[in-house]
């Protein structure tokens, strides 16, 4: 479903972020990317989203080369991918409801769909009482749950989570991981970048370890050690 084919990313200052990475991810998999900071996890995710261009190699999603898509096709592709970031990246001037509704609006969904789906997805992340709050009025864990709800609401094929628990305490971390797991159980592919050992041990799923831009280990059953 997702294929990285001999991908290298070298930045203009000739620092190497990724070197000859090849890996493939099947539908409905839950894959954790681990490794120290600067190992290339985030670059890998950015390449998948078309935020960055690879220096060499190609990234495929269901046999389309992501970097051969034009602007419009990229927009359409991104709507099939839900994203969750360490710093939440919610829209500060929009309420919880509007933050989630915005993604649906961007995908051209009707007002009726928005009115029925947003409460539903908020229920899924257990945030119904906060629907009219602004992000600044929420705790870190709540913000991340809004971000997950936003990522989920368009029923994406893939969820990408880049250090989603990096700013959270253990209790919230546990909640977020449980939510991601539930999403995966419902049939969505999840790609999670993290350096939290506890999460990996909890998940017991496939782990890809990276170091200095290379894949150093690809473990089907998942244990964290680098």
């Amino acid at each position, binding site marked *: 479903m997702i294929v990285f084919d001999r991908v290298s990313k070298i930045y203009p200052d000739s620092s190497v972020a990724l070197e000859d990475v090849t890996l493939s991810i099947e539908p409905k998999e839950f894959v954790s990317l681990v490794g120290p900071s600067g190992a290339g996890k985030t670059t890998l995710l950015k390449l998948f*989203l078309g*935020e960055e261009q690879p220096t060499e190699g190609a990234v495929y999603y269901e046999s389309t080369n992501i970097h051969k898509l034009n*602007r*419009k096709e990229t*927009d*359409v*592709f*991104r*709507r099939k*991918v839900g*994203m969750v970031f360490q710093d939440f*990246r*919610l*829209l*500060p*001037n*929009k309420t919880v409801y*509007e933050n989630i509704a*915005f*993604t649906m*609006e*961007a*995908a*051209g969904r*009707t*007002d009726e769909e928005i009115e029925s789906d947003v409460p539903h997805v908020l229920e899924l992340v257990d945030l119904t009482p906060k629907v009219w709050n602004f992000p600044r009025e929420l705790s870190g864990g709540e913000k991340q749950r809004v971000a997950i709800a*936003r990522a989920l609401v368009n029923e994406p094929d893939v969820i990408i989570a880049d250090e989603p628990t990096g700013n959270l305490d253990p209790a919230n971390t546990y909640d977020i991981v449980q939510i991601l797991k539930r999403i995966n159980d419902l049939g969505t592919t999840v790609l999670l970048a993290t350096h939290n050992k506890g999460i990996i041990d909890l998940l017991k799923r496939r782990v890809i370890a990276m170091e200095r831009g290379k894949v150093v280990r690809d473990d089907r059953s998942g244990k964290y050690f680098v």
Partner: protein
Amino acid sequence: MFWMKLKRVLRTGFFNFWRDTTVTLASVLIMMVTLLVIGLISFSGVILDATLTELKNKIDINVTFITSAKEEDILNIKHTTESLPEVLLVTYVSREEALTLFKERHANDQAILSALDELGENPLGGVLNIRARDPSQYGSVAEFLESDNALSSAGFPIIDRVNYFQNKIAIDRLTKVIASADWLGFVAMFFLAVVSVLIAFNTIRLTIYLARDEISVMRLVGASATYIRGPFMVVGIIYGIVAGILTLLLLLPITYWLGGTTEDFFVGFNLFSYYLRHFLEIAFVIMASGVLIGALSSALAIRKYLKV
């Protein structure tokens, strides 16, 4: 689909305008300054025009005839002068009228009046007051009068003096001043307008810079460039409209206050009544500038952040 998107873009724009109070306040105020400058510039253009016309109207030349000149000869010259293309208007002041005017002017000066009585006869000649279409044309008019065209029917000169030659330096200087004031005024206005538009442009750029992370998030959730740009342009346009309305209101007390001064200074030109008379045109210029600056600045500034 189009209407749904338009509705959403407008709604989001209004919300953003309303919610981000500090940014909104700063932008509207800066935009107001810009529009005020544009408004005052157009006024200063009008004031300058009024001044120049006023000055031009004050320039004329007087042709004084010798006392023995016959009235019909003078009227003859008046007639030929009037037929010159450069001449706008010629008024004849007869000897008697000249004397009456002279007496009126010196009504408080007993010495002059008694000297006049002593003379026993009217020492003043008839006068032709000539106004040219343009100050630069007085030279040729004066030359025409100096030539043989201005002889009496009997063929001897009857013109005592033409004050052009006394006033020549002053007239020349004024002509130059008027020409350069016209040019200088234009350059200054153009410069001011450009500077204030740039300031407004930069302010709006700053507001969009503040939203750059937000824009990148919108890109990442797959919102199209148009759909992201729309609300920002709506906000820019609202800035323009609100600032425009405030500027038009603010110009009321400003012109009212300046009105009295301009009325005294430029005979009969009241800035306040000018503003009221031309309100629709001025309102159009200011509102259009506001909307244009707002929309264009937003569109240009956001381009950079849409590339993600």
